[in-house]
Each structure stands twice: as C-alpha cells, then as structure tokens.
C-alpha cells in the first residue's frame, strides 16, 4: 500500500468505493431492504476507516470518486420523468398536493432549524439541516449555497430517511390515516428517496405518490430556502 503512484490514481478509490458499496448493497437486498441496512449507512464508515488507515486525504478521495458523484446532477434532472408521468394524478389531486406539500415543506424547515437553534448551533450547521427533507443531492447543493456543509447535509438527510421509513407505518396507523395516497405523499415529503423505497414496498399507489412528493419537494424546499437566503 506504500506505492504512491497507485494510491494517487483515481482507479484505486473508485474501485474500492464500488466494491464496498456492492457488499452492503447485496446484504441490504438479502434482508428485504430494511432501512437500517441502507448501504450508504454502512459503506460510509467503512470507507472512512479505510481512508484513515491508509492515511489518504479526503481531497484525494473526493477527486478520485468524482465520476460517481458527477452523476448526481443528471439524476436530479431525471426526477422530471416521474413528475411528467404522474401529470394526470397531479391535475386531479392538485389542491391536496399543493396544500400538503406547502405545509410539509415549511414544517420540515422550521422545525429542524428551530430545534437545532435551541442547541446553539451556528449558521453553517443550521444551513446544513434546513434542506433535510429533500433528496440528498438537492440537500447537498442547497446546503452548500446557504453556507452550510454538504457532507453534513448528506448524512442528516440519510438519517432522516432511515428514521422516517421506519416510523411511518406505526405512526400513521396511530393517527388513523388509512389512505395510501396521503401516507405515500407524507413519506415522500418527510423522508425523500428512502421513504419512497419504503412506500413502494407497502403499496404501489403509496409509492407513486411518494416519488412524486419527493420530486416536487426538491423544487419547493429549494425555492423556499432560496427566498430565505435572499432575505437573511
């Protein structure tokens, strides 16, 4: 491991990243995609340990894995496809969708920033949690633009997704909310991609509503925070 030439090529860390992720992804698949076994949750600490053990700087790692992270942008643009596919449903349910989305997005931002402010967190930490309900790439971009820490935003979003996916079913049952449209939509707004994956496991309608909610919330939360950023 001491050959600097090999350590410096992007090939090494790209291969290691795909390999480590693949191991945990297989494990997650075997366990029926349980939220607690989300592959990012496990591959991140393993990769951090490998970087520390090999004394590799994050700078080097980040540059090496650029081909993977670059795909985030086109993936976000691609969220347009489910929105377009569900256009008939959007038109039919326009009022509930607009009201629930607006209420959910505002609740998410205000409660996350509000509670964290009680702990005396500075602005850059608050900016990292504000977009916590959006899908990870959007949260990272928004956090970065608000002066937050993209890595922190990524991990907060991940945690919110895992937690939301786990509590949604029991919580919504307690509230007596049986409608799969409302349940799926709430999961998509509150817990983005991981919530959406969970919704698809429960019911196809809930899944469609969740992916729609995730895509719309990415735009609404980003827009709301843009306005806030201009004012503050």
């Amino acid at each position, binding site marked *: 491991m001491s050959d600097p030439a090999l350590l410096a090529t992007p090939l090494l860390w790209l291969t290691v990243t795909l390999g480590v992720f693949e191991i945990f992804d297989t494990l997650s698949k075997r366990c029926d995609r349980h939220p607690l076994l989300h592959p990012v949750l496990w591959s991140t600490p393993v990769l951090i340990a490998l970087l520390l053990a090999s004394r590799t700087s994050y700078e080097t790692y980040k540059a090496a894995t650029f081909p993977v*992270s670059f795909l985030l942008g086109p*993936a976000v*643009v691609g969220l347009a496809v489910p929105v377009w596919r569900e256009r008939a449903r959007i038109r039919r349910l326009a009022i509930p969708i607009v*009201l629930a989305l607006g209420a959910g997005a505002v609740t998410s931002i205000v409660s996350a920033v509000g509670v*964290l402010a009680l702990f005396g*967190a500075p602005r850059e930490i608050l900016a990292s949690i504000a977009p916590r309900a959006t899908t990870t790439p959007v949260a990272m971009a928004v956090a970065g633009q608000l002066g937050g*820490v993209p890595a922190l935003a990524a991990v907060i979003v991940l945690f919110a997704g895992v937690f939301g996916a786990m509590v949604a079913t029991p919580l919504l049952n307690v509230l007596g909310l049986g409608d799969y449209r409302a349940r799926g939509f709430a999961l998509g707004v509150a817990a983005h991609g991981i919530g959406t994956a969970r919704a698809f496991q429960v019911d196809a309608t809930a899944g469609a509503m969740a992916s729609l909610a995730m895509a719309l919330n990415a735009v609404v939360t980003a827009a709301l925070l843009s306005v806030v950023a201009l004012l503050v």
Partner: protein
Amino acid sequence: MRIAEHVSPCFIPVMLRAIFLLLACQLAGEAIHRITSLPLPGAVIGMVLLVGWLALVPRERPTLTVVTGWLTAHLSIMFVPAAVGLIEEGPVLSRYGVGLVTATVASTLLTLIVTALVFRWAFARFAPEGEA
C-alpha cells in the same frame, strides 16, 4: 426496465440522445443559476426545464425512462463520496451531534404528521370527482 435487458446496437444512439437531453437541461440550469445568481441549484432548475421540455414536445420516450430509471436506482452510491466527507467534520459532530439527531427526529415526525393530515383534510374538503 424490460428495454434495458436486450439493448440492440441501434438503441445506443437513442440512449445518447437521452443522456444529452439530461446534460443539456442541467447545463442550461447551471447557466441560469449563474446568470441570475438564483440560489436554486442548477440541477433543480434543470429538472424544471426538463418537465417543460417534455410538455412542449410530448412523445413516447422509452429510452429517457430507462436512463433516468437507471440513475434513480443508483442514486445511493452517488452520494457516498459526499457522505465520506464527514471525515473532516469530527468536531462539529461531537459538539452538535445530540442537537442534530434531536432536530432531525423532531422534524421528520412533525413533517410526516402535518403532511398526511393536511393531505387528508384537503382531499376530503375539495374531494375531486372520480378519486374518492
């Protein structure tokens, strides 16, 4: 996904067109982001542009569906490099870890409850025909 299973050579140029469309939308989004200095991320603007494009030129787009489906299915691994960036955030985590967990838990619970209740209320109040 059934199209991806037997990709024929003549399918590749169409695939490139779908990739081009995604990149072009993102590029235009980034340009708008920079020119207007709108804090909305370029990719999000690109997504809105793509919805607009799909509405302007409506036709069947099986390849675009396959390409975006593939990207969405592999979204998780794309943010691993960013999450590894936590390696540099040790002090922040040890100082605000409890606050971050509390705020995330509270916000996720509240958002789930508020969104679901508002959706149900609005649905009952403005019940659309044929969807009840």
